[in-house]
């Protein structure tokens, strides 16, 4: 659905050239929810704007739904854009229009006759769950409701692609989750390809099929979300994964625990998918002559299954611990010995 080949975007600034997007290659399949994560200034805003021609690449090729976005202009470009919806961090609604009129706006642009327009607006209001707020003005809506209007507006012309520019970054956690649920629902129901950029790993974890990590304009790591969670390679990716798996206080807690358990070993287990649902600890206790002490654990749900981190303390004879670790490794569980305090 979307292919970027060797795309570079350079901005000329007074202080010299800034390379916002640096030789990016990317392929996004139809119906996929693809996330791009990076800190601010990583180039993800420029990247997403290349997809609907709001920015033109300095070099390289951007193909969306078979159209060369860097080559077309004028009417062709405007028609292509009607097939690519976009939602924004700050919603960008017209405050002079009601909810209904805001959603009707892209239909007016596309030249849909009035009666059809009204019918379509009603469908969209149903779809995003804004019944009863049709005639409210944006200033009377909450952040989550505003983003729902943004989503309805983006979907009005039945686009094939939806671009989300930090769509949940201005929302509180609960509202973020409800908007993400809505996006997944739309993706399933309409078979829409969704490309989103964010700095929150939570968003990636919750809805994305694949993720690309961006740093200094380059994509440094890319893959299935579950895989990236299990085996993050780049330091930046590890930091993003920690956003979700390890709360800030974990490190301190671990240090404290290592002091408290001078014998044996503290081990971090990482479970992915089905492994997360096996009774591993029970098996450990039954099969090995060990004391198993659960220190801390967390299970996160990703779009493609669960992902868990468990910290346990194993106490017993050294060979027994080694045997136990070997057993755990056979269960498709990642093991990391945190420290040997003996």
């Amino acid at each position: 659905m979307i292919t970027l080949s060797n795309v570079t975007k350079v901005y000329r600034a007074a202080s010299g050239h800034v390379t916002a997007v640096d030789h990016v290659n990317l392929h996004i399949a139809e119906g996929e929810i693809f996330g791009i994560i990076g800190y601010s200034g990583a180039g993800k805003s420029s990247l997403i704007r290349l997809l609907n021609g709001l920015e033109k690449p300095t070099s390289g090729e951007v193909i969306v739904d078979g159209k060369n976005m860097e080559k077309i202009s004028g009417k062709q470009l405007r028609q292509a854009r009607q097939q690519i919806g976009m939602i924004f961090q700050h919603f960008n609604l017209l405050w002079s229009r009601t909810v209904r009129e805001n959603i009707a706006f892209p239909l007016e642009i596309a030249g849909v006759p009035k009666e059809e327009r009204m019918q379509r607006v009603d469908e969209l209001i149903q779809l995003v769950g804004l019944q009863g707020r049709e005639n409210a003005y944006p200033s009377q809506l909450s952040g989550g409701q505003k983003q729902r209007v943004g989503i309805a507006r983006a979907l009005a012309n039945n686009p094939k692609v939806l671009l989300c520019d930090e769509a949940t970054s201005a929302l509180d956690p609960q509202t973020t989750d409800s908007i993400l649920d809505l996006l997944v629902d739309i993706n399933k129901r309409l078979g829409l390809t969704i490309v989103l950029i964010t700095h929150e790993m939570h968003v990636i974890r919750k809805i994305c099929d694949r993720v690309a990590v961006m740093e200094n304009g380059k994509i440094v790591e890319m893959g299935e979300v579950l895989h990236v969670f299990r085996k993050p390679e780049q330091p930046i990716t590890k930091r993003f994964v920690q956003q979700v798996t390890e709360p800030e206080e974990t490190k301190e807690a671990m240090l404290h625990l290592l002091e408290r358990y001078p014998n044996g070993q503290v081990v971090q287990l990482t479970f992915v998918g089905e492994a997360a649902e096996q009774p591993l600890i029970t098996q450990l206790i039954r099969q090995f002559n060990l004391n198993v002490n659960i220190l801390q654990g967390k299970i996160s749900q990703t779009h493609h299954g669960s992902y868990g981190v468990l910290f346990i303390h194993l106490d017993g004879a050294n060979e027994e611990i080694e045997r136990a670790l070997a057993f755990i490794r056979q269960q498709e569980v990642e093991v990391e010995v945190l420290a040997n305090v003996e």
Partner: protein
Amino acid sequence: MWNELFPNVVWDKIWAATMETLYMTAVSVVATFVLGILLGLLLFLTSKGNIWENRLVNGAIASFVNIFRSIPFIILIILLIPFTKLVVGTILGANAALPALIIGAAPFYARMVEIALREIDKGVIEAAKAMGATTSTIIWKVLLPEALPALVSGITVTAIALVGYTAMAGVVGAGGLGNLAYLEGFQRNNNDVTFVATVLILVIVFIIQFIGDFVTSKIDKR
């Protein structure tokens, strides 16, 4: 009672002068509104980072606006006498005041329009572009409606300034309440005429301000 309080006031003349002032104000406000929005839009659209970015056109309009905004109105009227004669055919009466009023006020209003347009969130324009809107759609359905409250409060301020301008134009022969106050009031030392003319101008200003505030509050949904 009225005749005792204002012995020198001829009410028919007052009425005629009020009508002339209202006529000059109304026509010049409408023309200023249209011309100012046109100039303001051009200023905005040709500025840096906008749809029609063009330094040359922007610079030309900006200098035109700045020059005519800086000339004191009373001097502008005199400077424009040949132009007025050419366009209107006379330099006396209410119609003769219109070219100077419009040329004096439109650049002033154009700057206000430009400021109002700059206040619009860039993201909203970007969203319209992302939807595939043409430039004319962006102008008519995004820029003007989103800036409307600021455009209305701007034209209110301009209209009040124009009432003042009509009084000045009156002094050099354009008719209206200013003309009456100057000729019948000041020059003949009839203070009651000056007073009545002043009160009427104040009433007109208050009414314009009231209408402007009312309309702005009605259309402002922010």
